[in-house]
């Protein structure tokens, strides 16, 4: 590494670390709650967040959804201590299940967030992904920067793009440079394995530059592998920190921060790239929401296949009115955008008029 670069990176790292430490100043007011059962109010908080998609009026639904996402980020960073990101939530769930019958309160503590999310998904559909998830929200907000470009690429069937190639190379350089710096300044452990997910994210980006149109759906199966790797690691008691984990632990965690930055940068290039290809929790939610009470339904008699829904969907879960429930985040953008009002939320518990 060039000598002139080192002080710049050191200064940058110090600023990040200071900012990370300052989060805890805000957090101190809540530290009395930590370790007490009051923390279980997070179940209530998450439950309320989940009910909001049902309650909000359709007129300003997307604005309210973004507000809900911002609120979700705050709730997860300052209240939900047991989450620790997408990997940590699976690990803590495993630990909580192990405590059942031995320390039931501890079991409740660790199972509270994953059980709430899964039950919520069984009832309301995958609203957690579209309305609450902080990682998803970060990607969505990042993706808005190049929203028009993404829509153009989608309309053209994701052809090869020099701009995308340039962005990917730039992201890869950021990753390699940061890794170069970290490799000489700190010791890495198994828990830092989230950098491997970042590496795979960059490799995926390189593939998607040429093959997004044809391989997009097939590559999504990687989520299953990602899920089973994390479950196996949880069973083997291996702690792997996930992207955005540093936000929960409130300390400067370089590997987790790097993984988060990579997710955000990659989402500039391919919308919701983490949710599409690697998020293990997204896969679990899709399974839980398979027979959910609330789901989206298209009235094909009304649908004129105009393709507006295709354009607004951030995860390509809809094509000409045909919804893929396994990929849908239930953000309801398609419902709001459909000029024919052909897409609607179907509620199995609601009596049909």
């Amino acid at each position, binding site marked *: 590494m060039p000598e002139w670069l080192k002080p710049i990176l050191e200064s940058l790292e110090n600023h990040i670390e200071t900012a990370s430490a300052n989060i805890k100043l805000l957090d101190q007011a809540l530290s009395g709650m930590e370790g007490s059962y009051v923390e279980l109010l997070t179940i209530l908080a998450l439950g309320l967040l989940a009910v909001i998609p049902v309650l909000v009026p359709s007129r300003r639904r997307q604005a309210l959804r973004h507000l809900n996402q911002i609120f979700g980020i705050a709730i997860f960073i300052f209240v939900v201590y047991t989450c620790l990101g997408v990997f940590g939530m699976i690990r803590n769930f495993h630990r909580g299940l192990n405590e059942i019958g031995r320390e039931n309160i501890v079991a409740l503590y660790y199972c509270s967030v994953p059980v709430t999310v899964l039950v919520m998904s069984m009832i309301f559909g995958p609203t957690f992904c579209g309305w609450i998830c902080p990682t998803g929200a970060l990607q969505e907000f990042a993706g808005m920067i190049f929203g028009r470009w993404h829509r153009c690429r989608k309309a053209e069937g994701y052809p090869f793009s020099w701009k995308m190639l340039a962005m990917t190379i730039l992201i890869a350089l950021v990753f390699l440079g940061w890794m170069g710096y970290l490799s000489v300044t700190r010791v890495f452990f198994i828990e830092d394995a989230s950098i491997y997910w970042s590496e795979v994210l960059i490799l995926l980006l390189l593939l998607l530059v040429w093959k997004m149109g044809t391989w997009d759906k097939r590559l999504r199966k990687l989520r299953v592998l990602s899920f089973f790797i994390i479950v196996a690691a949880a069973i083997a008691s291996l702690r792997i920190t996930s992207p955005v984990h540093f936000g929960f632990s409130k300390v*400067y965690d370089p590997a987790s921060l790097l993984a988060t930055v990579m997710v955000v940068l990659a989402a500039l290039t391919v919308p919701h790239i983490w949710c599409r290809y690697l998020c293990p929790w997204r896969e679990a939610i899709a399974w839980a929401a398979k027979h959910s009470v609330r789901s989206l339904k298209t009235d094909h008699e009304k649908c004129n296949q105009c393709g507006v829904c295709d354009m607004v969907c951030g995860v390509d879960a809809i094509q000409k009115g045909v919804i893929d429930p396994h990929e849908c985040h239930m953000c309801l953008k398609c419902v709001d955008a459909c000029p024919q009002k052909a897409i609607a939320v179907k509620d199995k518990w609601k009596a049909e008029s």
Partner: protein
Amino acid sequence: MRALLALCLIVAYALPARGGESPWPALRGSCAGEAAITWQAPATAPAIREWHFKPLSDRRFQVGLPVWASPAVAIIDDRPVVYIGGYDQKLHALDLSQKTRLWFQITNGPILEAPAIGYLGNREIVFYSSADRSVYACDARTGRKLWTRELVAPSNTLGFCWLSAPFLHEGVLYITCFAYDRALARNAQSGWLVALEMRTGSEHWRREISQGFLSSPTGRIIAGRLHLYVAARKGLLQAFHASSEGLETLWSFQMAHEVLGSPVIETDGEQPRLFLGSKFGRLVALDAKTGEMLWKRMAGNWIDNTACVATVEGESMVLVGSHDYNLYAFRAHDGEMLWRKRFGGEVYSAPSFFYLKGEPLVAAASLDDHLYVLNARDGSVHSIFFTGQAVWDKVSKGETLWGSPVALEMEDDTVIIQGSYSGLVYTLPLLGECSLRSKMQAASTLWIGLGVMAALFLLIILPVLLLSTRPHKASRQAE
């Protein structure tokens, strides 16, 4: 014959204390918290080698739970012996030179705090507390129990009882105790400071000094009198003049936040300073005589444990770990940060300061499952040891010592002794052969790992995935 034996024992224990000082009188070995002793090993003594002692082999209770307490070390009959308790409810005496357990004593509760070792006559006695509400005294050589003193009476409604590590001074054992009784009628919640006679265990006095948890007491002689310091969990630090006669409050200092560790005091100088960290992450330095605050500094997150005061090249420094993954070194005089070292996890343990062939080193354990040994001058890494996966992931914070390391300095090597969450007590030589020395320090390991992952993904995972999957059903329908 029995009377003669009893007389012999009484005479033996009634002899004046050897050298006047206990070999390990307090929580971390001394009021400065250095947690290290020196051993002039005889020429015939075998070298101390790596040893992983598993105290749960003849398990009796709570299988697989970790060692939380910090050890105490003493030289008994010219051989180093470590005393450590665990969740198996036993105090173990481990002979490091022979790698054998000399003896163990069973209590009726987990041993969560460090023992202390003092003299009665010419004999070394180990004093320790257990969660069974009792203090024990055993002969350090044989394990023979001398006395047991129950500090809190049993009750059906007794909720929890916590006894600290003892502090020994001039034949008196000082210990703190917190107990609460959940019966509405009693509604008792008390933290006592208790003074016991070291020889018999009889109680000199006790005083309720808080209604919450109390830290382990520590103290030193200032102006010819013992100054005893105890911090209450709620942040109230109190200083006393203490003796077997009674207790006199000198001053108190209210920290702004909860306190999880015990205070430490400089051993040198006429104006000794006292250091204590808080849950807010603030380390304060006080005048140990008057309680006046000298300076305060912030760490990035909670200070989980007791600090350690060390003197390097004539300059006194405070070493303290924090929940922000860092070990800090502050100058004791004015609080200026000398260095800090970032680890891979929260630094939950109290540091230990020692020398290796004249080089000042500091050891501290981190929640990244590693024990770090750093150069105390600049914080550079000397060695890293893998001390096993934690039994639990992200255990709750604070509370106790969490297996802090202690050091045994010798002429040609230094060994670290650490009770770990993995349920083992490790003896790790710094220069000698050691299998747990971390191999993950090289930057090349990281790059090789990234290369292997890229190859694995591109050559195996991706082809298998593409060959085994077809376009999704929904896409086919759409087409």
